[in-house]
């Protein structure tokens, strides 16, 4: 059993971090995981994306062409990736940033105004994590407690306050 | 009977391959005298890149490395960063230091790398048979400037001490000559000062030694020394271009 996820949007929206968080959580559960970013000048202000695999078996290729799940936070990335999602897949769309509506009937699309929700709830800039919360809720790709454990590992001691706001953002996503 | 003159201990007891009248031997000897006087043969690593002195590893009794052309300051950096308590010197010619190795030289100085460079400037590529060097004088005939160095086409000589004196990491940049016993003594003082700066961990030191190449200049040794005085020194004036210890020394 392998789950593959693409996280895509603008550089600065925290998509690489979101992917790392989910991959880290998978690793904590004892699963095999991989994370690979797009890299290069395109990252600076342009689109940024990363591919994550979470598997019971060793991961063959970290490169994901047809994801099971897609978290997407800007229009160019939506256009780029929407048709690559596997039939039966799930897509988590930040509807604060993306106006398009998907016409595919073989996938489930969730329209979440994540950027607005984050802003309204005092966790500005954590729309990426809000979407992760929804991903956890709808897919169970990893357990919520694994994300908590991952946050404790990834976020350095000096910035512990961030853990709480991340957890809050996760909860917002879960509650939608 | 007392011994008044002998070969320094750190100088190998072998014949060198240098041409008759070449001043490399004098400079080798000065370095070895200083190594002996400072008692540092066992703590010294010398680096000689490509050029007439490439085989100097056989002439010094300290540990020696032969380096790629122009790269001696980088190799010296690697040695010194690994062994900061040892003495590290490079012995480089003008083509090596001022043409192919300009970047390595200037950046070692910029880092204030605590090494000593002995720079032999004889205004020609000696080893390959006398081609134009970065320090070849305007009008000087070489194999690759057969009509004399035309600065319109071949550019101007590079004055390394002047350039390196502008670099913040340089502790000492001094130009000396070995054309007379008096200048040989001055050269020795400069090289000793450079080694002392390294001992005191004060940074990058370079001593440029104006030298002769009778074979490639097509002159007798005596004529060569005369040319050095008449033509080279006026273009490359002797002197201290930078010495961060000068102030403290003047207070002595």
């Amino acid at each position, binding site marked *: 059993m392998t789950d593959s996820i693409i996280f895509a949007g603008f550089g600065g929206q925290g998509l690489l971090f979101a992917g790392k968080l989910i991959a880290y959580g998978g690793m904590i559960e004892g699963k095999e995981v*991989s*994370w690979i970013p797009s890299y290069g000048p395109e990252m600076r202000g342009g689109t940024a994306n990363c591919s994550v695999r979470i598997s019971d078996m060793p991961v063959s290729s970290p490169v994901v062409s047809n994801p099971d799940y897609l978290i997407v936070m800007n229009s160019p990335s939506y256009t780029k990736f929407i048709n690559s999602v596997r039939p039966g897949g799930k897509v988590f769309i930040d509807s604060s940033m993306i106006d398009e509506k998907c016409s595919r009937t073989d996938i489930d699309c969730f329209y979440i105004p994540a950027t607005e929700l984050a802003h309204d709830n005092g966790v500005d800039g954590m729309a990426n994590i809000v979407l992760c919360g929804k991903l956890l809720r709808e897919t169970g790709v990893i357990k919520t407690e694994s994300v908590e454990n991952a946050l404790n590992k990834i976020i350095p001691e000096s910035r512990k306050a961030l853990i709480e706001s991340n957890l809050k953002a996760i909860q917002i996503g879960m509650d939608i | 009977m007392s011994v008044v003159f002998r070969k320094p201990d750190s100088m190998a007891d072998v014949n060198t391959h240098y041409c008759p009248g070449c001043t490399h031997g004098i400079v080798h000897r000065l370095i070895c005298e200083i190594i002996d006087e400072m008692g540092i043969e*066992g703590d*010294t690593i010398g680096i000689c890149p490509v050029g007439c002195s490439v085989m100097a590893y056989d002439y010094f009794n300290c540990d020696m490395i*032969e380096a790629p052309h122009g790269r001696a300051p*980088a190799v010296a950096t*690697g040695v010194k960063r690994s062994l900061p308590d040892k003495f590290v010197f490079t012995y480089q010619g003008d083509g090596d230091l001022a043409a192919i190795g300009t*970047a390595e030289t200037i950046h070692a100085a910029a880092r204030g790398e605590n090494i000593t460079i002995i720079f032999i400037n004889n205004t020609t590529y000696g080893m390959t048979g006398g081609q134009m060097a970065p320090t070849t004088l305007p009008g000087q005939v070489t194999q690759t400037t057969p009509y004399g160095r035309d600065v319109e086409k071949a550019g101007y000589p590079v004055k390394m001490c002047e350039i390196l004196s502008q670099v913040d990491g340089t502790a000492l940049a001094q130009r000396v000559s070995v054309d007379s016993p008096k200048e040989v003594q001055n050269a020795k003082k400069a090289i000793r000062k450079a080694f002392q700066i390294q001992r005191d961990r004060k940074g990058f030191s370079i001593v440029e030694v104006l030298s002769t190449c009778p074979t490639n200049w097509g002159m007798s040794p005596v004529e060569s020394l005369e040319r050095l005085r008449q033509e080279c020194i006026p273009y490359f004036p002797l002197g201290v271009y930078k010495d961060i210890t000068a102030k403290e020394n003047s207070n002595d």
Partner: protein
Amino acid sequence: MTAERVLMKGNEALAEAAIRAGCKCYFGYPITPQTEIAAFMAKNMPKRGGTFLQAESEIAAINMVLGAASAGVRAMTSSSSPGISLKSEGISYIAASDLPCVIINVQRGGPGLGGIQPAQADYWQAVKSGGHGDFHILVFAPNSVQEMADMVVKAFEKADQYRIPAMILSDGMLGQMMEPVVFPEISDKMPEKPWATNGHGNKRKHNIINTLFLQPDELEASVSARSKKYETIVENEQDAEFYLTDDADIVVTAYGAVSRICREAVDEARKNGIKAGLLRPKVLWPFPVKDYQKIVPTAKSILCAELSTGQMIDDVKLAVNCSVPVEFYGRTGGNLPSADEIIKKLAEINDSLS
């Protein structure tokens, strides 16, 4: 207690493992996609008793490695394809000086400035022409973040054992991707280096590191002695991984990033009734000829997959003595083949066999 799994980028895992392996000096120059190695070293070397220095050029960096290796310490540099070309002069001198060191090439697309995405176009450069003259370097080919860490440790050990430069031939995918990695416990006991130019301390004759031999007989003796050493390495250091090759009609062969995609393709092909297997060289020089010989009796076809227009395939053909047909599939420019592309090629070959 089992060591903790941590999620790290390949470049960072390699750098961490290098420090654990006793790397005392790192010299580098920024170039994508390997810069994380330099950044990691800059952050960690000063805290752990090592030296990080950003050189003025790749040329200077490799010569600083030459100096540090001469001084007897474990030294490393890293770069990506165009930068390795600049280092090739120094690599030749280090090989000729019989000095141990580790060189990392996180390959990107070429020639020229090329691109910054993964490629395997420097195979020939690594295994055949690392610089001028008659020499070889050890070339390791990791295919995971774990192997980025494990192989750099092995590279330091083997480099010291044989007094030879060792290269990790990686690529942008392995450098940039994150995977769980467990760092091995490493002995801090370093081998003696009586040949080092570290100051004789008046206790021994002076050591000389030299590559110049103007007398033909002396140079020939030096080259021959090194050639003897290479024979020992060829005998002892070949290494490859076999996956489902025992009954395979078609053996896919690939190293590094592509080998992972090929493994997925082999699994899928098996589901479709194609008897495929994978032979993955873990060391590229010495090329694992002995391992390729093992598949000769059973394989009906070999498919060599590379991120190039075909470089390793020459060695594959030589390794099987052209007794098995060798097909090729390659992508360039920084493109990775999908598993589907490999499966399609496997299906074509399978059809031609029946």
